[in-house]
């Protein structure tokens, strides 16, 4: 077993609304990412994926507040750190983050090289301009980006190129963990593929040690990551390898998500896409029992009352449902 780079234990974070209500967007989440591994997090809009990403970085600015739990990066616990300290010593150097609209992060009036100088000014102020330029040129070329990009303005670049530039800048300091939050959702399929190839390259070429990839596109996760976690209403409902999650899901929500994917392969036209009826619960007052009960096809009366444990299934899998594995598998067989 390789070294665990990022370990999160029972992390809970909340938003405080302006009426002083607490909304627990990340509810007792635990996860582990080993060196050289990648983890995918999937779920529909509003399930807490992006909040989890911000929480993992220790990036707590109101209305987001830290409640409890530990975040350990490479044996260093960052959970209690002040957000400003996090910004100075963790972001970029330990954890890098690519938001969905990363391409909008570039200031249109500055050349790309200026952003890179900024990064070094914050983390390594002794480097001279020439050193920075050489370092950046080398890094860009290793990642398959033309070095002339450094001297260009963001408006001169296409959307896909901008996104790849931002990714390259974010990993210049060789962070241990890269969190990519929907890095390709705003791009067309051709640019998306280049971004995905680049993310895989980052790991192989040693720019990052582990990757957390957040998206709602399951086929993407299937092709990129090793493990997958499916999130619903702030909780992790299923944890498995990608292969298991796609071909043998245990949680009814995971099963429903798999039913909604579209791939251009023969046989697809005969399949019926299954939409999940209803909407996720309001997290201001989450339901007492299972949070998915309202929308679940396999719901039992006790689901609405008892809280559901995250129970293990085998040595690395776990799921959050009161029904036993075998019962669920049979139900999926019969219920389609």
């Amino acid at each position, binding site marked *: 077993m390789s070294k665990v780079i990022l370990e999160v234990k029972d992390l809970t974070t909340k938003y405080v609304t302006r009426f002083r209500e607490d909304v627990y967007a990340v509810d007792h989440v635990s996860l582990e990412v080993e060196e050289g591994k990648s983890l995918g997090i999937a779920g*529909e*809009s*509003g399930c807490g994926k992006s909040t989890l990403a911000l929480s993992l970085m220790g990036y707590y600015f109101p209305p987001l507040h830290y409640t409890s739990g530990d975040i350990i990066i490479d044996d260093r616990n960052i959970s209690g750190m002040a957000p400003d300290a996090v910004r100075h010593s963790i972001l970029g150097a330990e954890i890098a983050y690519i938001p969905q609209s990363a391409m909008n992060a570039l200031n249109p009036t500055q050349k790309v090289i200026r952003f890179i100088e900024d990064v070094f000014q914050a983390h390594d102020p002794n480097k001279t301009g020439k050193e920075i330029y050489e370092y950046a040129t080398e890094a860009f070329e290793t990642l398959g980006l033309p070095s002339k990009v450094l001297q260009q303005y963001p408006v001169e670049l*296409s*959307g896909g190129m901008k996104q790849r530039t931002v990714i390259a800048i974010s990993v210049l300091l060789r962070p241990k963990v890269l969190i990519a939050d929907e890095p390709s959702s705003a791009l*067309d*399929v*051709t*640019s*998306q*593929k*280049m971004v*995905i*190839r680049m993310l*895989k390259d980052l790991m192989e070429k040693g720019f990052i040690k582990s990757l957390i990839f957040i998206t*709602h*596109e*399951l*086929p*993407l996760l*299937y*092709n990129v990551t090793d493990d997958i976690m499916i999130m619903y209403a702030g909780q992790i409902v299923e944890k498995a390898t990608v292969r298991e999650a*796609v071909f043998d899901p245990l949680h009814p929500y995971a099963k*429903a*998500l798999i*039913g*909604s*994917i*579209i*791939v*251009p*392969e*023969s046989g*697809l*036209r005969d399949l019926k*896409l*299954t*939409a*999940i*009826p209803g909407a996720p619960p309001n997290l201001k007052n989450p339901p007492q029992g299972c949070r998915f009960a309202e929308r679940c096809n396999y719901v039992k009366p006790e689901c609405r009352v008892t809280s559901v444990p995250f129970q293990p299934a085998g040595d690395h899998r776990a799921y959050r449902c009161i029904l036993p594995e075998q019962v669920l598998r049979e139900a999926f067989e019969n219920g389609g």
Partner: protein
Amino acid sequence: MAGKRRPCLSGRGLTREFGSGRQRAVAVDHVSFDFHEGEVVSIVGESGSGKTTLAKMLLGLIQPTGGEIYFQGEKRDISTRKKKLEYWQNIQAIFQDPFSSFNIFSKIDTVLIDCIHMRGGRKLSREKKTGLMAEACSFVNLKFEELTRKYPFELSGGQQQRLMIARIFLLKPKILLADEPTSMIDACSRATILDMLMQLRDEIGMTIIFITHDIGLAYYVSDSVYIMQHGKIIEHGSADEVILHPREAYTRRLINDVPKIYEEWDLTTG
């Protein structure tokens, strides 16, 4: 099959150029097509292939610089405002970004009532109008009681896109042009939206034109597929023909760019 049906919307040598002289760019280049009644058509291509320019010409938002559009067998005439409004009763659109599709100053009631008025329901009683609005909302799984007096921006992206479909339900156009209707919403809502559109097609025999870069989506929903590259249609045919047995290298590349599950996804090419 499509061959027997009447063509609903056709184009002959349709061209749109932007700029002039050295700056001249041909966005859509002598494109010809026949979309039939009740058919679901997809126009697939990557960014910059001219899909959206073609869509805008079909909607009459921009004028073609060459070629003709035929609507129900006759040359389309939208020279006056009145004729344009008439044309728009027959063709409607759903756009990519639900957040910028609505006027932020009008409430959801106004959005829906406008549609009723456009179909000639101006004289209906208030109760009748409310009934129609509630029916449209329940068609798209929204509750009208929860929406009334709200503004569209108070809804989530998926809900807004569904509200857009509620409009289409009220307007019952002959042609619906959907420009990347699902690229900004998540995978579960996508299935719901596609389901609703297909249901509408079956109920009112609408022709649906999907504009998309996602060839998987095109394969799932459409009867026929047109592939666009650099403003030209380079391949077209039935969905099975084009996607399972593509002739052009470009089509193969587009198919290759979409992540697969059952087959290996080749990341090295393209």
